[in-house]
């Protein structure tokens, strides 16, 4: 940064610098505070905290594994459901839809992204859960009941419902990022494929190849969102600290554990356990989001896409 200019400019620069630096300070402060406050359980349980399966605050027993499992499993279900839909919609918008149609679709998707999470949760309880209990779950048990995923009691509340709600919530964000990434692929790539006698599908594959790392970034961004999502999932996952292979069984996630238990955590060790598991969530989402940004940046700067020499 050049140091020329009037005093006003210097002042202006310092203000901006302070603003920028404050972000770093805030992140560092959050991290410091969380580590400080979770020291009691870190010292008492060590790695056992992450691998323990029992969570019994009354007996001062704290194993975070069910919540870590629940968080990952629900997020993975969400991704599996969301990726094909998001890709399909984004490809349709960029490669096929006439402008007149692409705009309203994009608008709708932005609207979906803006719906508060508690509304998704309510919808989950009143619409999705009964639907799964009475129809989807019954169907899955009838035809795929031999799979361990679809055994057990059907209540409508549980891992599958949570995963589907998460899928709905991350689909808009994945779709819109993938759309941006596809739009950034130069037209010359499409024309190159077409000029060689490529069909529409083959041309789309060339476009996807160009956008691969950006698409991966979009997916990871969606994963970050799913991992951190709290309100909606709390309302439908059943809040039970167990690890079950059945998707119909209730489960719990880190975020939803924190949301529903913080108020009752009165003693120091319980509080410390919650903060430590919050720290785990913080670190995981931090890494996931950093990875996503990196992957998306790669496409935007053309490292991996068609760039001219």
């Amino acid at each position, binding site marked *: 940064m050049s140091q020329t200019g009037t005093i006003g400019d210097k002042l202006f620069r310092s203000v901006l610098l302070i603003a920028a630096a404050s972000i770093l300070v805030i992140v560092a402060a959050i991290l410091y505070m969380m580590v400080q406050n979770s020291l009691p359980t870190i010292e008492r349980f060590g790695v056992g905290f992450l691998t323990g399966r029992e969570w019994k605050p009354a007996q001062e027993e704290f194993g975070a594994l069910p919540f870590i499992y629940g968080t990952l499993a629900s997020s993975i279900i969400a991704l599996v459901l969301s990726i094909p839909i998001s890709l399909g919609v984004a490809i349709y918008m960029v490669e096929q839809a006439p402008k007149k149609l692409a705009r309203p679709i994009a608008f709708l998707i932005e609207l979906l992204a803006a719906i508060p999470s508690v509304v998704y949760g309510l919808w989950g309880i009143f619409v999705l859960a009964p639907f799964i209990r009475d129809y989807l779950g019954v169907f899955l048990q009838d035809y795929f009941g031999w799979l361990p995923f679809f055994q057990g009691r059907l209540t409508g509340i549980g891992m599958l419902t949570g995963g589907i709600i998460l899928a709905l919530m991350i689909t808009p964000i994945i779709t819109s990022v993938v759309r941006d990434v596809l739009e950034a692929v130069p037209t010359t*790539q499409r*024309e190159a*494929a077409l*000029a*060689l*006698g490529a069909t529409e599908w083959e041309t789309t594959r060339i476009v996807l190849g*160009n956008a691969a790392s950006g698409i991966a970034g979009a997916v990871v961004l969606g994963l970050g969102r799913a991992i951190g999502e709290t309100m909606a999932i709390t309302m439908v996952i059943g809040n039970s600290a167990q690890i079950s292979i059945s998707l119909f069984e209730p489960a719990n996630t880190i975020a939803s554990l924190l949301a529903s238990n913080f108020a009752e955590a009165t003693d120091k060790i319980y509080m410390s356990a919650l903060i430590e598991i919050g720290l785990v969530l913080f670190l995981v989402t931090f890494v996931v989001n950093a990875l996503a940004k990196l992957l998306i940046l790669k496409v935007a700067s053309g490292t991996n896409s068609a760039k001219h020499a």
Partner: protein
Amino acid sequence: MQSKISISNLDFYYGKTQALFDISMEIPERQVVAFIGPSGCGKSTFLRTLNRMNDTIPIARAEGVVKIDGENIYAPGTDVVALRRKVGMVFQKSNPFPKSIFENVAYGIRINGLHKNKADLQERVEKALRDAALLNEVKDRLNSSAFGLSGGQQQRLCIARALAVQPEVILMDEPASALDPIATQKIEELVVELKKQYSIVIVTHNMQQASRVSDKTAFFMLGKLIEFNPTQKMFTNPDERLTEDYITGRFG
């Protein structure tokens, strides 16, 4: 000489704006035809009507007849994919795929299912690279990324990629405009070499280039074909005053 492409009364529109006016022209087989004319006169537009690349622009519309080997490519039911296999295209800016050198050339062979087996694929890729005068420079690094090549090499790679699908016509839109004189010379030598096997149409802003590589030259202005004559005649004794003014640099 028999004509490969026969264009009659072609009009072309971008939405309501007409970009080409009543163009008729015969493009001969196994010769090089150069398109010249001031910027915006419709050279690229016209070139892209010959393999229906303009179909990708929603507002674009062509009226008239373009016959290749006697068949109207604008007739309903035309197989555009097959047409584009037959009429290859090389673009102004090189546009290799984000794949290896080998895979770039292999792409068109694969999607069109031209190869019998792996050895045949290898052979076809190498032949295309050889025909594009690139093989010697890249034979040791066929599996490295195409983006590692120089601009001129990338453009020859794109030519090799086009040759690999065995087209009959090659359309080139200012293929050397982004290249230095030495790379340009290589492309020009290549064009002259390629006309033994292919019919070539090349758009260029460079008068010397047109006179060096082409057998016939077409001069366009404001979407109209002003003159189409043997290159020799165009550059020494053109029929039209406008052509002479343009070639001698009196305008545009």
